[in-house]
C-alpha cells in the first residue's frame, strides 16, 4: 500500500492528504485564509483552468497572494516560475525567454516588453472568489526558483514538488497543533521550505507582510500562537533586538541560509529556554542537506555519513551533496551544469575541519552572504568602475556579527586625484550614491576604502583572497 507521502505530488493534494483541519490557516498582516477555503475559492478570478499546461511566471506584491496562486496552479501548470521580491523587472524579458513563459500571473501592472513567444496575462488577488469545487489535473509541475547570478541576472533553478519536499519528515506527534512562521519570503528557497513544511505537517502558517515592522510581525506571530519559527541568523539577531521577541513562545527555532555562530545560538537559548534550536544547511541548488541539533556552531564530521538519503563529501575544501533534494538543472541557453558527472552538487561553500567538527569558512567563488542574500563581488565592481574617477576596485566581504558579512570596496583612483580629506569624503559619498542608485541595499558597500594599489596576479587580474 502506498503511503500519502508516496502519492502526493502537488501542493493542493498535499493539503488534503495531510488533513485540511478546519482550524488550519495561512495569514499575513491583512488577511487570514482558512485552508479549506483554498479549495472553494480562486485567487485567479476563476481562470485557473485556462492555465493548464502553461509555463506560468508568478509575480505578486505579497506572499499570501503567491501562496494562494501556488496552491491553485501546482499540478495544473506545466511550470511555475516564482518571482522573488526586490528582483528588478528589467530581467523579466530574460526570464520569460529562458523559461519559455507563456503566461504571467500578477497583481501588478507590467509594462509591455518584447518576447519571443506570445504571453498571456492573468490577474490574481488574495481575496479569493468562490468557485465550484471540481476535479483538478495532476501534472508534475516544474518549480523554477530564481537565485542571483554573477552579473545580477538571475539563475533559473529547476525543482519539483518531490525534490522540494525530499527532506521534510512526517510528523510523529500528530496531537500537537503546529503554527509555522518564517522571516524568509516564500518566493525564495528558505521560505518555500516552510510553506511546504506547513503543508506536509498539517500546520498553519503566518507570513510577514511587506512594510510590516519586525516588532509588529513578532507580535502578530505571538498572537497567532506560532510554535515553529525559521530564519537566517541575521533575521534572528534582529528579532532578538526587539522587545516583542519575548512575546513569542516557540517550541522549535530553526536557522539556515548563513553560517551560524555560537553567539546567536547562545542568545536564542537564553531567550527561548524551552525550544528545540536547530540549524540546517540548505541551498537552492543542493536542497536541504542536514540539521544540527547539538546547540553548537559548525557540524560534526560524522554528519557527512549519517543520512543514507543525503550523500555528502568534502572535496577540494568545499561541501558536495547528492540527494533527492537536489535541484535538477539550471534553465536557459548556455546554462552551466548544476551537478558534476557523478550527480553531486558542489555547494561552493568551503569548510574547515577542527577537532572533529566542520566549520563554514566562506565561499570559494567569493560570493558574499549578507544576511542570507548573495552578493557577487563582480556585480558591485562593475558599478563602482563606472565612476569617472575610479581606476580599479576590488569588492570583498567583511565579517559582521549582525548580518554575517558586509560588502567592502577597495578602490584605486585615477592619477593622484585626492588632494584633501574633504575631497576624499566627497568622492566616497559620490561612489556610494552611484552604488545606491544601481544596486539593492544589501549590495551597497558598507565602506569605500581608497587604496593606492591592488595586488595583481600573474594572470593580470586583481588578486582575490577568497574564503
Amino acid at each position, binding site marked *: 500500500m502506498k503511503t500519502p507521502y508516496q502519492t502526493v505530488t502537488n501542493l493542493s493534494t498535499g493539503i488534503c492528504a495531510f488533513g485540511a483541519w478546519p482550524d488550519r490557516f495561512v495569514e499575513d498582516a491583512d488577511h487570514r485564509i482558512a485552508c479549506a477555503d483554498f479549495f472553494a475559492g480562486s485567487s485567479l478570478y476563476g481562470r485557473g483552468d485556462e492555465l493548464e499546461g502553461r509555463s506560468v511566471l508568478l509575480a505578486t506584491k505579497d506572499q499570501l497572494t503567491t501562496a494562494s496562486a501556488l496552491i491553485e496552479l501546482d499540478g495544473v501548470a506545466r511550470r511555475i516560475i516564482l518571482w522573488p521580491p526586490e528582483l528588478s523587472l528589467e530581467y523579466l524579458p530574460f526570464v520569460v525567454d529562458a523559461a519559455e513563459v507563456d503566461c504571467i500571473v500578477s497583481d501588478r501592472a507590467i509594462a509591455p516588453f518584447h518576447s519571443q513567444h506570445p504571453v498571456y496575462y492573468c490577474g490574481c488577488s488574495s481575496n479569493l472568489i468562490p468557485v465550484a469545487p471540481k476535479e483538478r489535473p495532476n501534472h508534475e509541475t516544474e518549480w523554477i526558483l530564481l537565485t542571483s547570478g554573477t552579473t545580477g541576472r538571475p539563475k533559473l533553478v529547476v525543482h519539483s514538488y518531490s525534490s522540494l519536499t525530499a527532506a521534510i519528515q512526517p510528523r510523529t506527534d500528530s496531537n500537537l497543533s503546529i503554527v509555522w512562521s518564517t522571516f524568509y519570503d516564500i518566493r525564495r528557497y528558505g521560505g518555500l521550505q516552510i510553506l511546504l513544511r506547513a503543508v506536509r505537517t498539517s500546520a498553519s502558517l503566518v507570513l510577514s507582510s511587506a512594510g510590516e*515592522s*519586525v*516588532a509588529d510581525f513578532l507580535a502578530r506571530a505571538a498572537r497567532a500562537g506560532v510554535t515553529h519559527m525559521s530564519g537566517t541568523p*541575521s533575521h534572528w*539577531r*534582529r528579532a*532578538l*533586538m*526587539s*522587545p516583542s521577541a519575548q512575546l513569542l513562545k516557540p517550541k522549535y527555532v530553526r536557522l539556515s541560509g548563513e553560517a551560524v*555562530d*555560537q*553567539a546567536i545560538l*547562545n*542568545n536564542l537559548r*537564553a531567550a527561548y529556554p524551552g525550544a528545540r534550536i536547530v540549524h540546517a544547511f540548505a541551498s537552492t541548488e543542493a536542497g536541504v542537506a542536514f540539521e544540527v541539533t547539538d546547540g553548537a556552531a559548525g557540524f560534526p564530521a560524522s554528519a557527512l555519513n549519517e543520512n543514507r538519503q543525503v550523500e555528502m563529501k568534502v572535496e577540494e575544501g568545499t561541501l558536495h551533496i547528492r540527494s533527492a533534494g537536489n535541484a535538477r538543472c539550471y534553465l536557459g541557453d548556455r546554462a552551466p551544469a548544476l551537478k558534476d558527472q557523478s550527480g553531486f552538487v558542489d555547494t561552493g561553500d568551503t569548510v574547515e575541519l577542527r577537532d572533529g567538527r566542520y566549520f563554514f569558512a566562506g565561499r570559494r567563488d567569493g560570493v558574499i552572504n*549578507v*544576511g542570507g542574500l548573495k552578493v557577487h563581488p563582480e556585480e558591485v565592481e562593475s558599478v563602482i568602475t563606472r565612476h569617472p574617477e575610479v581606476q580599479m576596485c576590488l569588492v570583498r566581504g*567583511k565579517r*559582521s*556579527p*549582525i*548580518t554575517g558579512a*558586509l560588502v567592502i570596496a577597495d578602490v584605486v583612483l585615477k592619477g593622484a586625484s585626492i588632494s584633501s580629506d574633504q575631497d576624499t569624503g566627497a568622492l566616497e*559619498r559620490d561612489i*556610494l550614491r552611484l552604488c545606491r542608485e544601481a544596486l539593492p*541595499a*544589501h549590495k551597497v558597500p*558598507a*565602506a569605500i576604502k581608497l587604496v593606492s594599489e591592488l595586488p595583481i596576479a600573474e594572470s593580470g587580474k586583481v588578486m582575490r583572497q577568497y574564503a
Partner: protein
Amino acid sequence: MNVRSAVVDEFMKVAREHVKELPSLTDSTPLLETGLDSLCFAVIVTRLEDSLGIDPFQAEDSLFPITFGEFVRLYETSQK
C-alpha cells in the same frame, strides 16, 4: 571623542546615508524604533570597529541590546 558621541555620530551618519529619519536618541529608545534596519546596524558596528577598535558583538556571551542605552553601554563596558 568619547564612546557615546562616537556611537551617536555613527547612527546619524548611517541614517543620513540610508535616507532614514532618526528620532532623538535617548537611553530608552528601542533600537528597532530608530527606523534603522539590520544592514544599517551592521554598517554602524563595522564602522565603530574601525574608529573605536572594538566589536563587542564578537563575544559569545554578550546579549543583544534592545535599547539605544544598552547599545552604548555594550561599547562602554567593552572598552574598559
